[in-house]
Every structure is written in structure tokens, then in C-alpha cells.
């Protein structure tokens, strides 16, 4: 097979679309793809202020898993994982999806209890999960230091064997190519600056390429969602923070699973190409600067070396940051907004990549029907008023 010169057209916007998606990252592209594939809606534009998938889609650490604690989260992330399992075939593109197993380490009795509880909760929800003691952790991942004399000894871990990583660029390109083939216009260098709202209904977006009318407008703008929503007069329970990650120089294969530790505050995997990919927690302050402080990287490296003394002489090649939108309960916000015809998909915080297909699937349904997909319903904006929060801080405060 010869590789095509271009995977998608690069069109200028038409004056009007049935659906305008604001944000050409993973979630926006997946939403466009499923709008076309599942609902036959192809008069769609994806507006991206930069280049396709150049925001958080290019900056994440590609960890995929579905071992969340609460039923609502398990359902949506497991739906996503099941989609991942068929996505390379479906998109006819090797996403390098590798189900190499995800370990979440426990370093104290609290972690152990929480981990065992999570394993049980996962199994009740049909999500594969196992509890490993320290010896089993060592067998599964020999390069981890499980010595009792470690500063943060490894007392066990949860393991989701179906979890793993994928190649983020391939995911974006594959979704973009298919969406484009359905006739979706992927429009780059087109920044949305405001909305035209008539009688409480959003009818058009104002952009750097002029006015574009829309039957429905769907935000998929991650860290910049608050700024856009404010243009529509909506205040959201989101705070934007830098989330840093880094890669090492290229190494021979040394780590064949994903290792995460909330207590020590780091997560590590080795990309197909050979670099170690590491991420940690957010920089604490609000920011749109796409950069963070070096002491956060330093703390993350200290944590990594605690777990992997073997990496002590590995050099850091590159660090960067993306802007993540964090919600009060560390769960996403998906659904309608107080403005008719304006939809929101945000708040995925530090863990949006794994949700890419699942998020696109439920968001496309929500947009197409004007009613939330059953898996998205618990993640509605009004849960902060009703109090029906989905508190995933235990699973998601640090990582992912």
C-alpha cells in the first residue's frame, strides 16, 4: 500500500454546518468521526485554532485503562477501552495500541486497602482487575525496586492487564482521515472568538476566519473550555492547570508495562520508539501558559528513581506541558449547557487520552439526539447543583 500524500483535505470553512465542533484534538476528532459513522451526520466542521491534535493530544502520556472506582466512571471508561480494542482495525490504521498491563502501586496500608477495594469494584463492573502482592509485582515488572528498605516500599499493586498505551499521533491521524473521508471539514488555523446567541440559542460561531452558522455547537476544547464558555455567558466549575510530562533519551526495551504510583506521584511507560515517558501531577496554580516549573519535574524524577534505581543515569531529553481542565470531582462534564444548541465535553483533566473514543462516542450521540447518551448522563453539568458528584480523586487525582 502506498501512503497517501495527505490524510485529509485542508478546506476553508463553508458559511454553515449542521454541527460545528470547537477543538481539533482527540475528542473533537473522535466526536466528528462518530457523528458521521453512528448518526450519519456529515455536514460537520471541526475548528482548530492551531494545527490538528497539536494541543493535549500531542502532549499526553498515552496511558489507557478503565479501572476507575465508581460505576459511572467504570462504565464510560470501559466502553472506551472496548472501542480501543477494535479501533486499529476499524480505522484501518495501526494505532500501536499495546495492552501491556497497567500497574497502580500501593506504598502504605491505606493504598493497599484502596487498591483491593478498587479491584473488587472493577470486577463487579466487569472491568478486569487483579491484586498483586510485592513478589508478584516484581515478577510482572522486574525493574521495579520492591526492597523493604525503599523510602516508599512497594506493598502490592492493582493490575489491569487490558490497559496499556497507544501512539497518540496515529490515533489523531486515523480519526482525522476517516472523518475527512465522511466529508467532515477539518479546518485548521481557525480560532473561535465568540458565539452568536439568539433567544437563548447558539446559532453561529465567530472565528478568525469569519462567521460560521451552526445547527449545533459542540465544545471540545479541554483546557480552554472556560474561556470559550465565558464568551457564551456560562461559568463552569473548571480550573485550568499545566500538566507536565517528559521523555528520556531512547533506550533498549527495559519496561514492558505501565507503572503508576499515586503516593510517590509518577507514572512511567516506555514508548515503542524506546523513550521512557513520564508524567506526574499538575502544577498547582491556574495557567494557560503550556509550561510548568522545573521543581515539579525534579520531584517527579526523584519519585521515578525511588521506584526504578536502574534509571538513575538516564538523561531527560525533553519536557513540556499541556493545559488540563480540572473539575471539582475529577470527573468530566459532558452534555447540554444552559444555552440551547451549545454542548460541552470538558473536565477530563489529566486523563482524557484514554477516553478519546468513548468520549467521542457518547458526545456524538448527545449532540445528534439533543439528549445525553446513557453513559454520559451522570456527567451532566447540573451534578454540581444536585450534589450527585462522581468523586474519582482516588483514581485520578494524580495520574494519568
Amino acid at each position, binding site marked *: 500500500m502506498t501512503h497517501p500524500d495527505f490524510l485529509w483535505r485542508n478546506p476553508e470553512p463553508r458559511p454553515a454546518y449542521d454541527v460545528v465542533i470547537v477543538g481539533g484534538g482527540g475528542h473533537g476528532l473522535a466526536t466528528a468521526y462518530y457523528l458521521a459513522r453512528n448518526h450519519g451526520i456529515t455536514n460537520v466542521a471541526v475548528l482548530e485554532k492551531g494545527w490538528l491534535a497539536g494541543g493535549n493530544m500531542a502532549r499526553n502520556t498515552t496511558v489507557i485503562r478503565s479501572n476507575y472506582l465508581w460505576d459511572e466512571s467504570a462504565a464510560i471508561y470501559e466502553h472506551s477501552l472496548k472501542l480501543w480494542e477494535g479501533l486499529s482495525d476499524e480505522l484501518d490504521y495501526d494505532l500501536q495500541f499495546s495492552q501491556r498491563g497497567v500497574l497502580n502501586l500501593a506504598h502504605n496500608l491505606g493504598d493497599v486497602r484502596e487498591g483491593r477495594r478498587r479491584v473488587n469494584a472493577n470486577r463487579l463492573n466487569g472491568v478486569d482487575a487483579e491484586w498483586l502482592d510485592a513478589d508478584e509485582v516484581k515478577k510482572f515488572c522486574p525493574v521495579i525496586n520492591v526492597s523493604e528498605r525503599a523510602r516508599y516500599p512497594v506493598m502490592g499493586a492493582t493490575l489491569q492487564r487490558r490497559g496499556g498505551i497507544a501512539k497518540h499521533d496515529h490515533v489523531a491521524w486515523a480519526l482525522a482521515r476517516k472523518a475527512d473521508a465522511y466529508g467532515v471539514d477539518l479546518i485548521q488555523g481557525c480560532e473561535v472568538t465568540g458565539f452568536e446567541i439568539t433567544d437563548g440559542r447558539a446559532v453561529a460561531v465567530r472565528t478568525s476566519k469569519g462567521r460560521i452558522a451552526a445547527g449545533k455547537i459542540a465544545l471540545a476544547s479541554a483546557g480552554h473550555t*472556560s474561556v470559550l464558555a465565558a464568551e457564551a455567558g456560562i*461559568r*463552569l466549575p*473548571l*480550573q485550568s492547570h499545566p500538566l507536565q510530562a517528559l521523555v528520556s533519551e531512547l533506550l533498549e526495551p527495559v519496561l514492558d508495562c505501565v507503572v503508576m504510583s499515586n503516593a510517590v506521584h509518577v507514572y512511567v511507560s516506555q514508548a515503542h520508539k524506546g523513550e521512557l515517558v513520564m508524567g506526574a501531577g499538575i502544577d498547582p496554580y491556574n495557567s494557560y501558559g503550556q509550561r510548568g516549573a522545573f521543581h515539579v519535574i525534579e520531584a517527579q524524577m526523584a519519585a521515578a528513581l525511588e521506584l526504578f534505581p536502574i534509571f538513575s543515569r538516564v538523561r531527560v531529553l525533553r519536557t513540556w506541558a499541556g493545559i488540563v481542565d480540572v473539575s471539582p470531582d475529577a470527573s468530566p462534564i459532558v452534555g447540554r449547557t444552559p444555552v440551547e444548541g451549545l454542548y460541552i465535553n470538558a473536565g477530563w483533566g489529566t486523563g482524557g487520552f484514554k477516553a478519546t473514543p468513548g468520549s467521542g462516542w457518547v458526545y456524538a450521540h448527545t449532540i445528534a439526539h439533543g439528549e445525553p447518551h446513557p453513559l454520559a448522563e451522570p456527567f451532566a453539568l447540573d451534578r*454540581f*447543583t444536585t450534589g450527585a458528584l462522581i468523586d474519582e480523586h482516588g483514581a485520578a487525582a494524580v495520574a494519568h
Partner: protein
Amino acid sequence: MMLIECPHCGPRDENEFRYGGQAGVSYRPEDTSDEEWAGYVFLRDNPKGWFHERWFHVHGCRTWFSVERHTLTHEIRKAP
């Protein structure tokens, strides 16, 4: 790393401080509606630009204070 000026200790490294989020959020009485209560508990401004915010000099003199910081450039100026 940012250099943050503590009103008591002067300019100090960012990692001596803890972030306190938006400044000027006043406590609400209990006879509020669910919407108002949700707003008080969960809604904070999240601007791209100047932001009036709290910092705590936790590893220093333990003073709470407010600054204005630009959320894109990270430039800090004293709160008016």
C-alpha cells in the same frame, strides 16, 4: 520557577508557597438556594489573563496574601 513576593519576607521561590486559588471569595450565609451554594462551593473564575489569587507562604512566615498574576505569562503584580 516563579519568584513570588511575600509581603513579609520579600521575593522567594515558588516552591516555598502553597496556592490558594481565586481571591475575594466571601463566605455565604446558609439560607442560599442550591444554585447559589453550588456556585460558592464549586465555581471559580478561570480567566486567561490577569487573575486575583491567594498564596500561602507555607515554608516561610506562613502569611496568606493576594497577588495579581497573569495566567498566560505568569507575570506577577501586587494586588491593588
